[in-house]
């Protein structure tokens, strides 16, 4: 392994100097033909000889112990092979980047719906039936299932200046409370695993986002060495955080397969996905803003209460973006975590911003209203010079350009409430922000003649990894992208960041870039020129007055592997994607129905690697914004905590009819020299951050009423309209 490159200072913009001209272009995904023809192999699609089918049995009590499992209760059902219980089985998926086994509860039950056993049968039908019929007895204990009743852990505030003094003496004050329900990722592909042992080595095909971490999690779960584990995740049917960590289906499949000596497949039914895959916590948020009459923010506070199961380290970072969007004399952010016995909480797309910005950007909008000021102006006026909490300079930040450019494109200045029959039409906007990261990643690039292969355990969960790694390599080596093959999602390949936190392209992309850069050095050496004089284009190398086809120059394979990790720039500069969202909505004054008519997101997210896949992700995020604002709501029973909305009919994700055709995305040209050597920033989550607030602010503009308990479902809109009279 080569030395690790650490990002300690800005790097030259090599991708602006190269000649192939494919970086940034909206190239079609190379995996597209497989996806549209149904031949892309997702986990459960893999044919496996002799496979047995597993169904997870789940607890029907909230807290207690499994006292007995009556195996005889299903022994006579045809096709049933075994009921597996094992101390290595896991309670819930690992948190993202855990790299160690999730809680292995033994016979303890910590939440309603927790996996407690695996029924294995010859057919899927038999396993499903037997898992439901299996008689289980429990001893039970009382447990708090609502955040109000749970034990509260109050954190230390993140603060700067004297918030209380600044707020108390502010000329204008706003103090509002907001609530958001739990939400779920609901990736279209349910969690799936197929495990098979050869000797003491296991191969797991699974739907996972972070193979490098998942490998460590599986080895730790099974009590074996990482060298005995291979994970394959070449195609993943969406993740959004839900597949960051190794799930109970994967652990159970491996354990059962080992015990039975044959391959075992476990695919979660949709209801199980709702019950025991990590949810986004519900939140209770209090936003306090103080300002001068002319709209200078003097005090900012955003306190929140979230929940999780005892001992789970994750807490929804609700106020993450509120901490650096605007400046004030005093700022304060305090988080409280309530401990409850319910499905554990974890990362769901844009943890923090997705729900935090619904509240925060609603409050900023309402403050503008109180000040009689254009909400756009209020935001523009309060962009801080440096990070308000720690004083770090921003790496590159085009928030103001996004706000003003978006306003112009959207026709913001001409907004007026229109009435069209029963419909009230209005416009809203919000800032967007999502902090940017670089996570340790490795990649290998091999070049033979004019064909290259990229190898990394990085995943493509719909994000476009296959496309962008081919583009980076093609650009660096002067090849048509069709001559670059990208191999992903195999734990035997160099370990990458995985897909999460919008850092995948930054991290795996940079590792690929560095490996390809190394190859450029090797090519220059063969050509006998300085690497700075080397030009690579269309499979030909030029330099030192020579031009040679790569097919001649590189007869035997050249290979390079590179590893990158964050360095000093992460300490000295604060990097974040920024943007502005605009929405136009129509609200039916009698039914309370809200229709989004059009949306615009203007975003500055560093170098765009593929205009087409980047746009898709941004649109996807904005649609999630619509879902968070209007429909998405997980409901837990207040007596035993069980998930009531446990399927796609009761948990409403946006459908075609909820999303207008007019969803525009504009990327501003930007390079983030402090972020990584390819000058990129994350994309997948910026689209959602603030998008829902734009929709909610448009409702307020159209109707003159505000909703504080999200989502803004018709019942709440009608109640607010009636209260206004």
């Amino acid at each position, binding site marked *: 392994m080569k030395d690790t490159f650490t990002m300690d200072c800005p790097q030259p913009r090599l991708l602006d100097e190269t000649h192939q001209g494919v970086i940034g272009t909206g190239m079609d995904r190379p995996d597209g033909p497989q996806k549209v*023809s149904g031949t892309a192999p997702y986990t*459960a699609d893999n044919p496996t000889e002799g496979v047995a089918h597993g169904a997870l049995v789940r607890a029907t009590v909230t807290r207690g112990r499994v006292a007995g499992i009556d195996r005889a209760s299903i022994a006579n059902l045809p096709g049933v092979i075994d009921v597996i219980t094992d101390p290595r089985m896991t309670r819930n998926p690992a948190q993202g980047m855990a790299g160690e086994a999730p809680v292995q509860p033994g016979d303890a039950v910590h939440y309603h719906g927790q996996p407690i056993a695996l029924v294995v049968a010859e057919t899927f039908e038999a396993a499903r039936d037997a898992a439901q019929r299996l008689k289980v007895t429990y001893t039970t204990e009382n447990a708090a299932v609502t955040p109000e009743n749970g034990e509260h852990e109050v954190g230390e505030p993140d603060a700067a200046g004297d918030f209380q003094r600044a707020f108390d003496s502010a000329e204008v004050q706003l103090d509002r409370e907001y609530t958001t329900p739990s939400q779920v990722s609901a990736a279209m592909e349910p969690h799936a695993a197929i495990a098979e042992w050869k000797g003491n080595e296991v191969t797991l095909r699974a739907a996972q986002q972070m193979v490098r971490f998942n490998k460590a999690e599986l080895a730790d779960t099974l009590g074996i060495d990482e060298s005995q584990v291979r994970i394959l995740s070449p195609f993943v049917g969406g993740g959004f955080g839900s597949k960051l960590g190794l799930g109970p289906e994967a652990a159970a499949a491996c354990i059962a397969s080992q015990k039975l000596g044959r391959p075992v497949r476990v695919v979660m*039914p*949709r209801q199980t996905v709702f019950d025991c895959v990590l949810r986004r916590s519900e939140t209770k948020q209090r936003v306090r803003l103080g300002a001068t009459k002319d709209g200078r923010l003097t005090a900012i506070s955003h306190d929140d209460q979230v929940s999780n199961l005892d001992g789970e380290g994750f807490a929804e970072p609700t106020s993450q973006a509120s901490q650096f969007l605007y400046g004030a004399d005093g700022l304060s952010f305090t988080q409280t975590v309530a401990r409850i016995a319910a499905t554990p909480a974890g990362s769901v797309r844009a943890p923090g911003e997705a729900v935090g910005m619904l509240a925060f950007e609603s409050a900023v909008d309402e403050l503008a209203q109180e000040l009689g000021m254009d909400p756009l102006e209020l935001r523009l006026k309060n962009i801080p010079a440096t990070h308000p909490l720690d004083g770090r300079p921003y790496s590159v930040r085009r928030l103001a350009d996004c706000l003003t450019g978006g306003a112009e494109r959207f026709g913001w200045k001409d907004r007026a409430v229109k009435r069209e029959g029963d419909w009230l039409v209005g416009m809203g906007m919000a800032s967007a922000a999502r902090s940017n990261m670089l996570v340790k990643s490795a990649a290998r690039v091999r070049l033979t003649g004019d064909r290259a292969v990229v190898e990394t355990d990085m995943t493509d969960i719909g*994000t476009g990894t296959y496309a962008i790694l081919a583009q980076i390599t093609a650009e660096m080596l002067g090849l048509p992208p069709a001559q670059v093959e990208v191999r992903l999602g195999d734990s035997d390949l160099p370990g990458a960041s995985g897909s999460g936190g919008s850092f995948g392209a930054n991290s795996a992309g940079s590792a690929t870039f560095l490996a390809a850069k190394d190859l450029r050095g090797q090519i220059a050496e063969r050509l006998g020129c300085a690497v700075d004089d080397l030009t690579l284009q269309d499979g030909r190398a030029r330099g030192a007055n020579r031009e040679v086809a790569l097919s001649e120059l590189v007869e035997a394979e050249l290979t390079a592997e590179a590893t990158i990790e964050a360095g000093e720039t992460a300490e000295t500069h604060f990097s974040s994607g920024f943007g502005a969202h605009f929405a136009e909505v129509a609200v039916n004054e009698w039914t309370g129905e809200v229709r989004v008519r059009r949306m615009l997101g203007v975003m500055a997210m560093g170098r765009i690697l593929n205009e087409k896949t980047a746009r898709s992700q941004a649109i996807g995020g904005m649609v999630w914004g619509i879902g968070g604002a209007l429909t998405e709501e997980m409901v837990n029973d207040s007596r035993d905590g069980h998930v009531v909305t446990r399927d796609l009919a009761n948990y409403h994700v946006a459908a*075609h*009819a909820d999303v207008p055709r007019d969803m525009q995305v504009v990327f501003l040209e930007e390079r983030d020299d402090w972020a990584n050597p390819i000058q990129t920033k994350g994309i997948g989550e910026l689209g959602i951050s603030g998008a829902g607030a734009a929709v909610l602010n448009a409702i307020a503009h159209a109707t003159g009423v505000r909703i504080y308990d999200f989502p803004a479902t018709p019942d709440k809109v009608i109640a607010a309209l009636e209260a206004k009279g």
Partner: protein
Amino acid sequence: MKTTLTVNGEAHEVTHDPRRSLLDTLRDDLRLTGTKKGCDHGQCGACTVLLNGERVNSCLCLTAMHDGDEVTTIEGIGSPERLSALQKAFVEKDGYQCGFCTPGQIMSATAMLREISEGAPSYVSDDLEVPKLTDTEMAERMSGNLCRCSAYPLIREAIAMASEVSQ
């Protein structure tokens, strides 16, 4: 029990559990895994196939009830080497991300285009006699096909593009 089905023009006799869904027969018995299972409850559309020419959620069909029926799956629409106009349009417009809902979207859209061309109206049709392929019509008629990656506007751009090509 035994059921005979014609799938993508080929006759198959399958021996199956009486509880078997058409979706599981296609995926696990016939190894036609292009049809996806997203919910198994008729709530997502990932399993959409054509049954005697009409789109259905194959997870809601019991195999035993379809003796003698004809089924078309995504594998019967085109292969990576020979994509249909709709499949090509999805690639060009990026009408997907993870791709898991995509076979269902394409099967549904294939049938939807025919339904409109045959004059079947929907809840949002302005003209009940001659419905047009507007974006509103497409959004209404495709709403049984969820896409959590939320490629919706691009899916509809792809459908519109393919329908122009075919006209």
